[in-house]
């Protein structure tokens, strides 16, 4: 445990640590652009220059700690050099924050205000470059904003291993470019580079010019895209910035999804499917209870369902592996004794979707199979003959394979043709409208929180199960 001095204060550093790591561990912030804890050390931005007494300036990210070293992170020399580095970076940078999506969460902006504050001292025309380079169908590259920190190239070489990005040319006309034959579009983790980019060079097409980040707030959630259950932040408009005119749907929609760092599950990354949760949750919703396709009052539908349950001799339930731990528990407590229950997979791999890899993506495309399977077995290929009632909870049911003649109670959140074929249809809420937990394939439990209010008419499955467990009223 080497003892080092940072700005005159003694700290115990760990052997093998860099000065940057030791400083950050001690709560002393040293600014960086290129450094990232999950990537190899590039040491190219030079923003983390610190002074070591007796040795002069060097970059903290590549400087091993040694006992007794005296580091200054805020000396006049260090401050002058930081200012100069920012002068170099902004020399050819367009400073077009006004039209840049990164504004508000941009390291360059933050450091400029913290460490420079001065306009460019250069009078030279800026080096122009490609303003809109099509990296993939998901990502645009603005080479003028790029500061060549090479986080994105390192990500594709070291983390996603698509080797999709590199640097073309050299000097101040160097540009990030994708390899011709293996476009970044094939990399299911590509959007992480948008988060990794410390400036506004890499832009998500989904998010492009959609909103200002300071109008948004994140709600912690869990990606339901596969059994990994990556922790994510779902970004949506802050209540105080809800729009009243123009497009009020924005108030209820996912602006973007970013990883929420979770060392136990996903580290700082998620895959592109996790970015596209709006595609899952923002499909057209079912909001009306129905009896054989005819809208009815909720109480009527519930009563009819209770009757069917009370009358059934061999009731069977197909339980959703998108149900939260709380919902599964509610089902088991309320209806577990009544139904013979099996686990149904709500979602299966789609054509072209990566099945599985060593980074994050799992073959099971459902978030809570582990918890569901702890209670019930997987549904057999052929359901038992003689079943006279089936309760289907969630999507992914092969209705043609249900026992013939059995009655059907169907709980679904989305509009679907099958909704109208059920004897009783009950509309449910989705993950972004309630709190809950999923158990991932490793047994790690992660929680999600409500971002939006339920549409009127939709119900939480948890409440529905309790309500269905009440005895049916006796008909007159």
């Amino acid at each position, binding site marked *: 445990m080497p003892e080092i001095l940072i700005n005159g204060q003694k700290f115990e550093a760990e052997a093998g640590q860099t000065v940057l790591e030791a400083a950050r561990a001690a709560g002393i912030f040293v600014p960086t652009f290129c450094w990232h804890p999950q990537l190899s050390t590039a040491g190219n931005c030079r923003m983390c220059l610190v002074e070591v007494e007796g040795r002069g300036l060097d970059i903290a990210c590549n400087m091993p700690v040694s006992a007794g070293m005296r580091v200054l992170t805020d000396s006049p020399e260090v401050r002058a050099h930081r200012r100069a580095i920012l002068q170099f970076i902004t020399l050819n940078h367009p400073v077009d924050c006004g039209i840049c999506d990164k504004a508000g969460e941009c390291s360059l902006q933050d450091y400029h205000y913290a460490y420079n504050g001065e306009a460019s001292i250069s009078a030279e025309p800026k080096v122009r470059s490609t303003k809109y380079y099509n990296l993939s169908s998901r990502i645009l590259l603005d080479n003028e904003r790029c500061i060549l920190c090479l986080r994105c190239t390192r990500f594709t070489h070291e983390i996603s291993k698509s080797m999709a990005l*590199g640097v073309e040319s050299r000097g101040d006309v160097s540009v990030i470019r994708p390899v011709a*034959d*293996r476009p970044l579009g094939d990399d299911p983790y590509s959007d992480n580079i948008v988060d990794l980019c410390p400036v506004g060079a890499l832009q998500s097409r989904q998010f492009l010019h959609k909103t200002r980040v300071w109008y948004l707030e994140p709600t912690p959630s869990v990606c339901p895209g596969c059994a990994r259950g990556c922790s994510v932040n779902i970004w949506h408009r802050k209540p105080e910035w809800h729009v009243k005119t123009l497009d009020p749907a924005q108030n209820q929609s996912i602006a973007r999804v970013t990883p929420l760092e979770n060392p136990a599950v996903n580290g700082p990354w998620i895959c592109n499917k996790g970015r596209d949760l709006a595609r899952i949750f923002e499909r057209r919703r079912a909001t009306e209870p129905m009896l054989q396709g005819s809208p009815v009052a909720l109480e009527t539908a519930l009563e009819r369902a209770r009757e069917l349950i009370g009358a059934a001799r061999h009731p069977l339930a197909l339980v959703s592996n998108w149900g939260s731990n709380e919902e599964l528990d509610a089902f088991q407590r309320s209806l577990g004794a009544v139904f013979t229950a099996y686990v149904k997979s709500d979602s299966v791999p789609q054509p072209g979707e990566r099945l599985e890899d060593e980074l994050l993506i799992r073959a099971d495309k459902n978030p809570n199979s582990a918890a569901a399977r702890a209670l019930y077995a997987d549904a057999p290929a052929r359901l038992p003959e003689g079943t006279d009632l089936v309760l289907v909870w969630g999507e992914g049911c092969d209705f043609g394979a249900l026992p013939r003649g059995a009655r059907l109670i169907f709980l679904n959140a989305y509009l679907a043709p099958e909704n109208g074929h059920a004897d009783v249809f009950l509309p449910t809420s989705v993950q972004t409208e309630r709190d809950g937990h999923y158990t991932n394939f490793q047994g790690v439990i992660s929680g999600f929180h409500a971002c939006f209010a339920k549409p009127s008419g939709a119900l939480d499955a948890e409440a529905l199960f309790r309500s269905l467990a009440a005895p049916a009223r006796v008909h007159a």
Partner: protein
Amino acid sequence: MKSLLKEFEALRARFPAGFESSLVLPCLRRIQEERGYVADGDIEELAAFLGVPAIQVEEVLSFYTQFRRRPVGRWHLQVCRNVSCSMRGAEGLVGHLERRLGVAPGATTPDGRFTLSTVECLGSCGTAPALMLNDRYVENLTPESVDALLQELD
């Protein structure tokens, strides 16, 4: 590239095990010598042959000034205009060649015979001014010797 595979195998055998990546530069040089430039298809083939990422080959091609992705004229004149050569008349010589060939540096004559380029230091400062004619150095140039050189070239 196919015709060079045997040669590349022999080259690989000369290097220590695990040095496949090192072969990128020498293989590209041979491809360029044969074809006159490196074609897009060569990149993927070479990357697959050596087991290196294709992006590495693309980076190398764009980083080093001697590699080219497009053909040049039959005679490529690369005139040094760095300090020592300029101190001995290189700047005037470039102007002279521009007038004689009717093209600016970076361009090829319409008949495809000559490409004129300017380069930085060829390490020929003691025999300045100098140029590279394809692979060969031509040194101690004067406008007269350049005229004589152009006469010789078909």
